[in-house]
């Protein structure tokens, strides 16, 4: 009898919870303002790291923190692994995601010194399938300004960026090509590729 009541209580609770989720959804959905705010935060934090005057290794660690906090790393890692992800075990996928996160931080973190004295300005936003794209302009010293576009989505359950375009070049697609080439060179050996990725970038 008691268990019956409990079950009823549980049912009532879940119904209420799903009703709340249904009600709350439009409120929590990603808005243009939310997407802009996210990218403004990312840009501010990156600018802070650049102007911190820390060592390159420390900057790369800070960049990895920003990448993990504001980026949807699981979906990016999955997309970059591409077709080969289908035959990867859960453990391999986890290991890949971790290696990928470090690789991206090193590869792009190393380039931070090019941004010293420069700035990124968020300009306009446009709605896309998965959420919003935030178009910004990067002004680096001694270079012509160029366009950087961040793609933002809330499909992970939180507002996170999931891709970046630099002057039309899709960073995620470029990395997918790179990981595909690394796998080809290793005869499709996922473990070997992950081991080498930990040192690459």
């Amino acid at each position, binding site marked *: 009898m008691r268990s019956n009541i409990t079950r009823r209580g549980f049912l009532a609770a879940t119904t209420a919870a799903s009703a709340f989720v249904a009600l709350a959804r439009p409120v929590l959905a990603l808005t243009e303002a939310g997407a802009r705010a996210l990218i403004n935060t990312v840009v501010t934090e990156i600018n802070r790291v650049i102007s911190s005057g820390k060592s390159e290794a420390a900057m790369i660690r800070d960049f990895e923190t920003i990448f993990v906090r504001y980026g949807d790393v699981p*979906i*990016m890692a*999955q*997309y970059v*692994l*591409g*077709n080969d*992800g*289908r035959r990867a075990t859960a453990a391999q996928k986890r290991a890949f995601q971790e290696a990928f996160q470090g690789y991206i931080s090193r*590869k792009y973190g*190393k*380039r931070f010194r*090019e941004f010293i004295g420069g700035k990124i300005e968020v300009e306009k936003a446009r709605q*896309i*399938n*998965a959420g919003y*794209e935030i178009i910004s302009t990067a002004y680096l010293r001694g270079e*012509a300004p160029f366009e950087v*576009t961040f*793609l933002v*989505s809330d*499909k992970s359950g939180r507002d996170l960026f*999931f*891709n970046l*375009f630099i*002057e*039309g*070049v*899709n960073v*995620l*697609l*470029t990395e997918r*090509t*790179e990981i595909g*080439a*690394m796998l*080809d*060179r290793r005869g499709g050996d996922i473990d070997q590729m992950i081991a080498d990725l930990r040192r*690459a970038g």
Partner: protein
Amino acid sequence: MNSFLGSNGAIARYLALGALMVLTACGTAQDTVSRADGIHDPYEPTNRRIHAFNKALDTNLLRPGSKRYARFVPVEFRTSISNVSENFSMPSVAVNSLLQGDLRSFGLSTARFAVNSTLGIGGIIDVYSEFGVEEVDTDFGETLYVWGVGEGTYVELPVFGPSTRRDALGRVVDIVTNPLSNTLDSPEKYYGTAAAYLTRLNDRDRFSSTIDSILYDSADSYAQARLIYLQNRRFELGDETASSGSDPYTDPYEDPYAQ
């Protein structure tokens, strides 16, 4: 300016050559992109051999040359040379803007050439940019795009690097019809070529970390260069028809494993 636009028939030469190119290139206009990632590269084996040649050229000549150029030549001088090279290209930019029906760019490039050639002492000083006037750049490859010629297959050109069939044809037309080399006498007409060569050395040095990362840190530098070139060129042209898989709006949330 009259000299490079009218009297020597630069436009007529462009049009004649252009028409010829369109005729020969028409076959490519209907080309469909053969791969889901928006890359049409049926000559990949040949292209890869040319890529290996270009890479060796970079390793042995271009890269070390650019390092030496940057080390021994002051930055002010290198910038002036780049300005001269850019100024030399302005008449060609003006003609192409006109052929594309882009009167605004035509006006900007013509004015820039006039101002920089005079006040800027033969283009040594980029007076025009100092004024904060927008820079315009175009080429015959873009003119062909505007005229509706398809991108064609991907090609890697010896020395010049990544290109497409359309852009390769455009390059030939731009070189053959350059209004300045057809107007100036020797040796002045070679100044542009010399400046262009030194500008390339300078650019190789300025963008050294990006180029090194593509050529020497990648598992497949050919595939990286091809993808980056195609995406960036399509972005420049505003061409959204050629890319499908590399479509910016491809949604990884739909199926992250789909190629």
